[in-house]
């Protein structure tokens, strides 16, 4: 049996994974990074608008933290938010020193643009391709440091013995060979859950793998009802139009040409929090002031010069995918699935288990998580734009350090080769299945069901329908058959594994959402339209039970900011 072994194994080569690897490596750890797609292909590259931090003297990290707490609708853990906003300042500076080019102001310092839900201009950016700029620079540094990477390796399972993660099983995609991956610490940086929903702004590789594996391994998925719909996505394919466009001054218009945000958020207008703007758009569309299910984003008054420099990618995306010249005409857009606030419950050092020993939540020792796949709870009920990239670098770094430190204190766990043989047997049985349904068919039906039932607005009935549909689809998994039983680059097989992960996670989203009987952040229920701090100022936890996810609760950590009415 082929085996690889490193003290710290990082699964995922997006910004969180790379930052964790960088930190682990500079601290002298024996570390390697596994990624199912070549690391620079990771979805972090698609982040457009920017990354927040209070860099200027007029601004303060406390102000950033307050905006984040308020944006989260008070569901974010304030200790984690303080860390994010305080340490984030140095993390951005560190990224600049590594080579990120960041747009500059006239004095040559890092420039910032406005973003939704923030009281100051504090979103640092590289034109409208910030994620790509950050990811590539991080990758250049990792090449320089000589990080060991396993590129295009797909992790299929985590291996757990006595509630401790002792490694994982991974397939080298180019050969189809399975490997036993032994690690003292395993770090999940596998990104979000994008294709549980259709349409989605996320890349095709964003398929909830880490979430599914961690859930099956016994970790807790926290606040999974927190699903963010971005206000400006293209109708044709769900591709994102960055919030940076509104940050630079773009308007939102309804079919009558009115800036309708005046009626929903008279102070912040287009730059209110994302949940607020997406609800406003949906209301406009439902009340007949949209066109074919869309409203419009209008950039015309920004002028050609600004558009073609600071929003060049947007200009191209609109031209290529909507045949629209944004310099001359408003662009039709609609809210679309974008981001998962929920994720694997971790502490502020990325540990998925409760080190206090009090078992306040269920977790798996030696398993860490960071980035979109994790939930250290800085985004709570609604993420502010620009805070996710920051989340990946701040908590990626802390998690990398945490994993190295932990790995020093333990030996490799016992691992049985039987686990790899299990995976091997599973694959063989998949190849042997008779003709049945395509996994893509089930994926599309799941996407539609989730988007119909648990989107911008939701209620008991709509969510129940979605849950029932997802469960019915899950039962069809054994009927899925593959077109390909080859070993080399068998993406049909990988699509099946991804679908299994997504279905587990979709079920957790639906059950968590059904359980929260209030409206908070992006979780907007028409049957419980108000926030209810008395009963619901708490996190939902979904853990694997005998017949699907079981829901429990955890208090929210409040340090400085008591919940008050949230208006923009």
């Amino acid at each position: 049996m082929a085996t690889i072994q490193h003290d710290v194994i990082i699964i995922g080569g997006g910004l969180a994974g790379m930052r964790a690897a960088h930190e682990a490596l500079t601290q002298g750890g024996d570390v390697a990074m596994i990624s199912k797609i070549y690391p620079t292909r990771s979805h972090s590259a698609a982040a457009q608008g920017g990354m927040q931090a209070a860099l200027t003297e007029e601004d303060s990290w406390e102000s950033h933290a307050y905006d984040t707490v308020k944006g989260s609708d008070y569901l974010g853990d304030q200790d984690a938010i303080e860390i994010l906003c305080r340490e984030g300042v140095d993390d951005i500076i560190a990224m600049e020193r590594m080579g990120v080019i960041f747009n500059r102001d006239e004095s040559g310092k890092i420039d910032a643009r406005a973003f939704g839900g923030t009281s100051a201009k504090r979103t640092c950016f590289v034109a409208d391709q910030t994620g790509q700029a950050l990811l590539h620079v991080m990758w250049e540094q990792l090449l320089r440091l000589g990080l060991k990477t396993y590129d295009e390796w797909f992790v299929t399972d985590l291996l757990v013995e006595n509630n401790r993660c002792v490694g994982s099983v991974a397939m080298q995609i180019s050969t189809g060979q399975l490997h036993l991956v032994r690690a003292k610490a395993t770090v999940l940086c596998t990104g979000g859950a994008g294709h549980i929903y259709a349409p989605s702004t996320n890349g095709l590789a964003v398929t909830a793998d880490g979430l599914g594996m961690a859930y099956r391994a016994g970790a807790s998925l926290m606040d999974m009802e927190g699903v963010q719909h971005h206000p400006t996505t293209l109708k044709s394919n769900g591709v994102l139009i960055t919030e940076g466009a509104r940050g630079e001054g773009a308007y939102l218009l309804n079919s009558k040409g009115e800036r309708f945000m005046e009626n929903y958020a008279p102070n912040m207008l287009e730059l209110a929090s994302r949940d607020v703007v997406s609800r406003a758009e949906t209301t406009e569309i439902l009340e007949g002031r949209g066109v074919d299910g869309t409203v419009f984003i209008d950039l015309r008054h920004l002028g050609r010069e600004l558009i073609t420099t600071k929003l060049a990618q947007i200009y191209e995306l609109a031209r290529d995918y909507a045949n629209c010249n944004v310099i001359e005409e408003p662009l039709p857009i609609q809210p679309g699935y974008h981001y998962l606030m929920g994720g694997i419950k971790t502490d502020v050092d990325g540990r998925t288990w409760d080190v206090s020993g009090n078992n306040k939540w269920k977790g798996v020792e030696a398993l860490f998580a960071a980035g979109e796949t994790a939930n250290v709870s800085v985004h709570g009920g609604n993420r502010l734009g620009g805070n996710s990239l920051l989340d990946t670098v701040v908590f990626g770094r802390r998690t990398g350090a945490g994993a190295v430190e932990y790995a020093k204190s333990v030996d490799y766990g016992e691992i049985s080769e039987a686990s790899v043989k299990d995976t091997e047997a599973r694959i063989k049985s998949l190849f042997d299945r008779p003709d049945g349904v395509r996994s893509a068919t089930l994926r599309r039906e799941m996407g539609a069901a989730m988007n119909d039932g648990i989107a911008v607005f939701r209620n008991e009935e709509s969510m129940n329908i979605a849950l029932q549909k997802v469960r019915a689809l899950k039962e069809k998994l054994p009927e899925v058959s593959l077109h390909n039983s080859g070993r080399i680059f068998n993406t049909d097989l990988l699509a099946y594994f991804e679908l299994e992960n997504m279905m587990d996670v979709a079920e957790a989203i639906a059950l968590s959402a059904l359980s929260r009987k209030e409206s908070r952040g992006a979780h907007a229920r028409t049957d419980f339209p108000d926030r209810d701090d008395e009963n619901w100022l708490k996190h939902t936890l979904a853990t694997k039970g005998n017949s699907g996810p079981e829901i429990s609760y955890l208090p929210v950590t409040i340090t400085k900011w008591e919940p008050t009415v949230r208006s923009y």
Partner: protein
Amino acid sequence: MQANLKIQRYDPEVGEEPRYDSHQLDLPEYATVLDALLQIRDDVDGSLAMRASCRSAICGSCSMRINGEARLACKTLIANIVQVEGAEVTIEPMGNMPVVKDLVVDMSMFWDKVQKIQPGLLPKTPEPEREFIVSNDSMLDLATALNCIMCGACVSDCTVLEVDKEFIGPAALAKAYRFSNDPRDNATDLRLDLYSQENYIWSCTRCFQCVQVCPKDVAPMEKIMSLRKQTIEAGHTNNPGTRHTQAFADSIRKTGRLDEIRLTVKAFGITNITAMIQLIPIGWRAFRHKKMPHLLPKSISSIKNVRRIMDKLGNE
């Protein structure tokens, strides 16, 4: 919209020669080549291997040859191609790299070359307390190189790489530019020395192909020309690289392969007199050997621009 996709298939496990599969598809108006391929892979033939993720021309996964030219499948609208190049769309894996399966090529050579240019900013010392203070213009200049999404299209279609696998190639050299021109970097001189060695900047023949195919307007050739200027100005002239200015011509002589010229001429267009003149010696030798390709290729200037113009006309 109707389109006929002709896809090159190759499965090393079966061991047969590459073949072409045809698929007649009915597609939505704004379908990209990637949408079409996904439709095939999802519903018709799940054994089709390809790479794709972002669907928005930023992850660099989906380069392949579409009607003979390396392009991003997710950025190429079927309607545009069908309009300009006909209803049959031929899809093949990228060139200059070995095929793993179907449309997937082994890019390890690509990544190795990027590694060779010594990536990774080495910040100037003493490091400032906060960020480096630099002008926005100096950063914007680097942005043109940093726009590179490592898709491999330029490497696929680079005419020198076709005959000389040792050439570092356009993408890696565009990245090299990004470091040697970064005002914050501490190793400019060492870098320029490296980049002027054999197989680096002096091996390019200025055939323009990389500029033509790059989906992100990185213009690698222009970066290479800037690097040449920079190395000469910095006095890095006496090294094997500089003495190899004629590398492409040499390679051709060595291998006797000449079809590349067609691409070259196609890419230049007929207005780029200087570039054409530089090509004459090669063309003339080719002519003598009765291997001269058609001088007037199907499309003369940048295909992209022609397409854009046609789009506009079509819409009005």
